[in-house]
């Protein structure tokens, strides 16, 4: 029994033992970035670990904070990102990027991209909670940002983006409803993380879809070859497909993976806060687990995982718990009645290939 998601619940569900922590002997590192102009307080992390970090080795503080900190109130998102990245990827050097203090005329997310292009030594894994509706951004901007993700992938950085919290999304195009994809979740050069819930919210049990989990098909980026087979499999076998006019079946489909996104405990401004939900919770959890796998790879003299998707789809989601129950939300109308896509066996546009089963995922990704 449990009363909400804490590090122990995460580590139990994803089969992380007390030994599954960073060794402290490698140059392994991870980072989380949020652009909500929120502050992160080191005292919150210390309090969080005092409350919830008792049964695994962990670091008490972050290695580096990029962006001014400390003066304003802490934000829940900034607190949650760090606390769960450092609980799943425990005892691994962690950076926090939050952009308070930038000039009023600057764009926080763009400033983060400039940082990526200006620092040679960066953490291997970056978890990012940021998304905009694809249709609200200019194609010049979207294409350029996509190239920035290519630059990061070429350098072996793993970029994980939250898939969004509006399910398939919904908007009206020439008076017809359509699903509304989100960017950067729809970029073919990042790994996108969806969200799940426990079937019984008070037990560590099977995971089902969290109805908010962002997912769908890009209207900007064509489907990358690495996922064509998996997507075709889904489209030919799902018994609950929405009308084809709602989505672009030839677009980049997302998310790629998922993790719990429902009912988290967070400490912010020294106050423990329950039942916090969103894919910006599942993203640092998945990122921390990839950092642990990088730890084993580095200890074996192997390079870090880098851009994960080609390998993830080639291995057909080996090492992940397949989530096959539940659907996410979408347009509230007669035609789809609020239901977007539904999960199913294998890959699906709600939870991707599924959620991490650490020992099995390590076995699948430790090979050269």
């Amino acid at each position: 029994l449990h009363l909400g998601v804490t590090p122990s619940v995460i580590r139990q569900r994803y089969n992380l033992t007390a030994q599954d922590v960073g060794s402290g002997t490698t140059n392994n590192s991870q980072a989380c970035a949020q652009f909500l102009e929120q502050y992160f307080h080191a005292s919150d992390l210390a309090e969080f670990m005092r409350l919830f970090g008792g049964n695994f080795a962990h670091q008490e503080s972050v290695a580096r904070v990029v962006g001014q900190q400390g003066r304003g109130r802490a934000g829940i998102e900034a607190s949650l990102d760090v606390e769960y990245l450092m609980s799943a990827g425990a005892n691994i050097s962690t950076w926090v990027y939050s952009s308070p203090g930038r000039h009023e005329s600057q764009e926080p997310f763009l400033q983060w991209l400039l940082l990526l292009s200006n620092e040679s030594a960066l953490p291997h894994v970056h978890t990012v909670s940021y998304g905009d509706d694809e249709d609200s951004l200019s194609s010049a901007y979207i294409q350029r940002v996509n190239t920035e993700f290519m630059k990061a992938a070429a350098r072996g950085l793993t970029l994980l983006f939250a898939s969004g919290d509006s399910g398939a999304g919904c908007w009206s195009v020439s008076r017809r409803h359509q699903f509304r994809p989100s960017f950067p979740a729809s970029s073919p050069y990042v790994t996108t993380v969806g969200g799940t819930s426990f079937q019984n919210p008070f037990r560590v049990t099977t995971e089902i879809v969290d109805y908010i989990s962002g997912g769908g098909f890009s209207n900007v980026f064509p489907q990358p070859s690495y996922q064509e087979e998996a997507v075709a499999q889904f489209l030919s076998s799902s018994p609950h497909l929405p009308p084809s006019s709602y989505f672009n079946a030839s677009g980049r489909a997302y998310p790629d993976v998922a993790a719990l996104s429902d009912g988290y405990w967070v400490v912010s401004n020294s106050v423990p806060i329950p039942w916090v939900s969103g894919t910006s919770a599942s993203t640092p959890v998945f990122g921390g687990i990839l950092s642990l796998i990088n730890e084993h790879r580095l200890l074996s003299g192997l390079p870090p995982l880098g851009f994960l998707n080609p390998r993830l789809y080639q291995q057909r989601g080996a090492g992940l718990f397949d989530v096959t129950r539940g659907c996410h939300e979408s347009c509230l109308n007669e035609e789809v009645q609020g239901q977007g896509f539904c999960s199913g066996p294998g890959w699906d546009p709600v939870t991707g290939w599924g959620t991490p089963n650490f020992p099995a995922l390590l076995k699948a990704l430790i090979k050269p």
Partner: protein
Amino acid sequence: SYSPEPDQQRTLPPGWVSLGRVDSEEELSLTFALRQQNVERLSKLVQAVSDPGSPHYGKYLTLEDVAELVRPSPLTFRTVQKWLSAAGARNCHSVTTQDFLTCWLSVRQAELLLSGAEFHRYVRGPAEIHVIRSLRPYQLPKALAPHVDFVGGLHRFPPTSSLRQRPEPQVSGTVG
């Protein structure tokens, strides 16, 4: 002239309130995304280092390698720098890959440089987050079309959090 971002949404996002036009002598920091080279080759390199079946799998580039590949052409550099310095831009900073340039200009200079733009100050929510943005489209001289992808700091507002605190789940017949 031409508009680099005709399809960028320019409506005021919910929660933001205009505080009016910014004084023309105030300073702005704007980011210019310069046109890169060899993007196609970069895409192929990403596939090579990310595909487990490739002999180059895991053989990643350094930042300097990436810079070597995508850095803008000398013509792009010269054209953009001449254009910016003629407009009075100063304290320009580049990045290792040289494909972004961040410069300081007064509002007056920026509105002359990016014709059509009109800078206003906006504020959001209890945290009193302030931004300066233009909801009007900007245009660049046609000669810049091959050299500038877009200008950052005009239209896009900081995102809002989508985290939510849900009510405690009620599961009948279990934990009291």
